[in-house]
């Protein structure tokens, strides 16, 4: 079966299962007795195994199978979960992930068979999970011998493969018989893909060759061939005294034969084959240059007994079939509701098209009024469609941050500092392209916190903090930005040390250094190759850190700021703009113009009697629930004529910018709306307006930049 078409799905689903395994194993470590978690893990491992098996990735299947065994035992309470087991399981996960990477790159699972890991798993089972844990933690990345010899075995197998006729299963009895024959030829016939009567063609072929000699062996069996139980090729061995060429000619006279591969064979070849049979090498259909077939015939694996495609030539055997195309497709998982919305809009589009078509077919003359209405309708639909597609591109940052708890756990072990990661706002959505590039910078900041931020347990105890350090990652939306805060409750940045280092590096003179503000000092950390680590570890400290983070984030149009308090920890704040984004906004009216205010920056909306306006330094303010809030006359700001109004109350939208509040006076509230932010093109550098949006009726509304107004 040709499974290459399922490869994308396989890759996608496998990543999903790996992630869920990883999450659940973390969970399991916390609550080793939670049977629900174990069941969940078991299910994921089982699905992984099943999928790998279906795709013919035998090594991956083997590994997952052994993992599943372990989970089975855990489920049956025969094995206890401890951190050593968790370590092994995570290593297995890494190995599976490696397989997946190899599959992505080459459509093949590669040669690594992870014997060492499998052994670890089985040892653990055998030892009932008692000890063995200590050693288990030792690097399992030493399958050097196992892996390599495995690879070579595969290689020699590959070289033996050649055309399919060499893989005809021959039982020893027949083999003896073959030895008695004078001259043997192996044939593989590829029948054209659109052939309807394959069995008939095969019959004609056999009839043609039987004029020359006797067919000794078939693959598939002659019965299966008669019943059409084969794909598009079949092989046989012919005993004859004739030359090869006339036979091939004879075969080619049969129509719908795509190509014929044939060569001399010897019984010994099949003997050898027999020995190797128990180790079938599963390779996905690879277009290999077949000797005689002019076009590279896609060769679906022929029979269940010989599940391999024609492998690369002997020489190429060692280099693991290099020609496979890398799988570069990138997929996205989309909430079904978003797709439904998209579907609805497409059906509306079809309705609109139909109504236009029926009008043009009808009277011949189209009423310009209706035509106009229809076109407007059409326009509206397409705009909505555009929005929906944009929405489909929005993905929660969960996909990048989900791997971090695991990473922190590993660092915990490596650095011998107990710590945990607390994450909030994983469902914050960002454009797919931004999310994709967010992983590295965030990972870097987290590593930084783990390595430099969190102190050693002893220091923490001395400072009166809980021994276990906390690293946090908070994501949320604020106005037109998504904010991601990464920080820790560690020692904070020692600005004195940074300053000394800067002086030492000659970046500032000692005199200048005295006058630097804290912020300026912290900015040194973002300079290229400025490292504070006393020693270089493989976690951080090479000095290629924060400057890369900064440039990566800036490339996405965002910025990074740092807050640090000595002894209490530091927080890196990553701010990313939502350029393509859709935001929730409050629509307000000022005279006859409509404006949008991002809902995220609105605190509340109040109706306030004019009599309550008070003055501070001759500026209008209101005093609301203990807070003094300056008033902003939006109409003045937007160059409207002052309104002659008789009303004695006003509508105030109270907005926040960081910690400051401001009350924006508007004429009318329209309502809440989800809007798509559009650029103003040439007018984009406007101070008060951060963009525009197109409303349902095609009208444009400006988006007020609250930060500039307050």
């Amino acid at each position: 079966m040709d499974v290459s078409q399922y490869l994308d799905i396989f890759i996608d689903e496998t990543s999903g299962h790996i992630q869920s395994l990883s999450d659940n194993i973390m969970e399991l470590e916390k609550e080793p007795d939670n049977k629900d978690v174990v069941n969940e893990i078991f299910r994921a491992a089982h699905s992984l195994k099943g999928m790998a098996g279906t795709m013919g990735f035998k090594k991956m299947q083997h590994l997952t199978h052994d993992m599943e065994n372990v989970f089975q035992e855990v489920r049956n309470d025969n094995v206890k979960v401890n951190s050593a087991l968790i370590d092994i399981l995570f290593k297995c996960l890494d190995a599976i992930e490696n397989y997946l990477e190899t599959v992505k790159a080459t459509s093949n699972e590669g040669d690594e068979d992870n014997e060492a890991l499998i052994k670890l798993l089985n040892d653990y089972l055998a030892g009932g999970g008692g000890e063995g844990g200590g050693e288990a933690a030792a690097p399992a990345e030493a399958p050097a011998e196992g892996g390599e010899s495995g690879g070579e075995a595969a290689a020699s197998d590959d070289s033996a493969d050649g055309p399919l006729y060499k893989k005809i299963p021959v039982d020893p009895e027949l083999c003896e018989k073959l030895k008695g024959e004078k001259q043997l030829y192996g044939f593989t016939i590829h029948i054209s893909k659109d052939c309807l009567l394959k069995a008939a063609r095969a019959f004609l072929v056999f009839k043609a060759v039987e004029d020359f000699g006797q067919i000794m062996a078939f693959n598939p069996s002659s019965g299966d061939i008669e019943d059409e139980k084969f794909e598009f090729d079949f092989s046989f061995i012919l005993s004859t005294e004739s030359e090869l060429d006339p036979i091939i000619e004879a075969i080619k006279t049969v129509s719908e034969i795509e190509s014929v591969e044939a060569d001399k064979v010897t019984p010994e070849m099949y003997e050898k084959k027999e020995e190797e049979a128990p180790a079938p090498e599963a390779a996905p259909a690879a277009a290999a240059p077949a000797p005689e077939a002019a076009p590279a015939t896609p060769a679906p694996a022929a029979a269940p007994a010989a599940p391999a495609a024609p492998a690369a030539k002997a020489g190429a055997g060692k280099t693991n079939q290099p020609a496979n195309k890398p799988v570069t497709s990138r997929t996205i998982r989309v909430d079904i509701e978003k797709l439904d919305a998209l579907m609805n809009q497409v059906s509306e589009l079809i309705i609109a098209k139909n109504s236009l078509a029926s009008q043009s077919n009808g009277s011949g003359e189209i009423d310009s009024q209706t035509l106009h209405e229809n076109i407007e309708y059409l326009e509206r639909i397409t705009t909505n469609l555009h929005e929906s597609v944009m929405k489909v591109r929005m993905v929660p940052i969960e996909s990048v941050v989900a791997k971090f708890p695991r990473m922190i756990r590993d660092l915990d072990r490596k650095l011998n500092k107990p710590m945990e990661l607390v994450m909030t706002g994983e469902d914050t959505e960002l454009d797919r392209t931004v999310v994709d590039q967010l992983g590295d910078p965030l990972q870097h900041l987290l590593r930084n916190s783990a390595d430099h931020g969190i102190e050693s347990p002893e220091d923490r105890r001395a400072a009166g903090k809980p021994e276990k350090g906390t690293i946090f990652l908070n994501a949320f939306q604020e106005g037109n930005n998504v904010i991601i805060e990464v920080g820790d409750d560690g020692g904070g940045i020692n600005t004195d040390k940074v300053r000394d280092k800067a002086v030492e590096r000659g970046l500032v003179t000692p005199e200048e250094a005295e006058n630097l503000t804290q912020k300026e000092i912290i900015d040194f950390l973002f300079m290229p190759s400025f490292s504070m680590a006393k020693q270089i570890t493989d976690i951080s400290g090479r000095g290629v850190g924060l400057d890369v983070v900064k440039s990566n984030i800036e490339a996405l149009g965002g910025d990074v700021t740092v807050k640090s308090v000595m002894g209490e920890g530091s927080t890196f704040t990553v701010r990313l703009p939502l350029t393509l984004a859709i935001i929730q906004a409050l629509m307000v009216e000022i005279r006859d113009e409509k404006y949008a205010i991002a809902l995220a920056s609105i605190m509340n909306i109040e109706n306030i009697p004019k009599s309550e306006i008070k003055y501070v330094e001759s500026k209008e303010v209101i005093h609301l629930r203990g807070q003094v809030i300056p008033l902003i006359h939006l109409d003045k700001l937007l160059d409207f004529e002052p309104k002659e109004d008789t009303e004695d109350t006003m509508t105030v939208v109270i907005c926040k910018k960081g910690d400051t509040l401001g009350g924006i006076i508007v004429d009318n509230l329209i309502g809440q709306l989800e809007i798509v932010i559009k650029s103003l093109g040439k007018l984009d550098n406007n101070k008060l307006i951060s963009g525009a949006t197109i409303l349902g009726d095609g009208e444009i509304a400006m988006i007020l930049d609250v930060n500039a107004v307050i």
Partner: protein
Amino acid sequence: MSDLAMYDVVEKEKKQYIVVKIGGEHYGIDISYIDNIVRLSKITRVPKAPLYYRGVINLRGEVVPVMSLRRRMDLDDDEFTDSSRIIILKLDGGGLMGVIVDEVKEVLSLSEDDIEAPSSTLKSKNSFINGVGKNGDELISIFEISSIIGDNEAS
């Protein structure tokens, strides 16, 4: 010989211009800058934008700034009539921008020979013209698009 002939052809190659009317004058806009010509639709004011930007319009779901050429050239303010049009220009950066004209007259092919550089007396400092084309008796001022689009305030 053949080289010479080729050279001749290139010399005589004509460019197409859209002839528009603003005030009493005829202006030509190089057709290669033009994306589209649309009827006047609702222009939404953009607060705090330069005065000669009348605002933005919704062009097939895109927000496109619209400039008043009359305001840009210090002429009387626009009068919107049935024949008023917005000419959508393609910008170098890939964006679009509209300019309002009183009327679109015709498409005209002019060769280099038909266009004269504006004389120094005609060419004031805030000129957006880079030549005067002759079409029979009619004179057509050719717009220098880059100076219209450019943000530098006419001074």
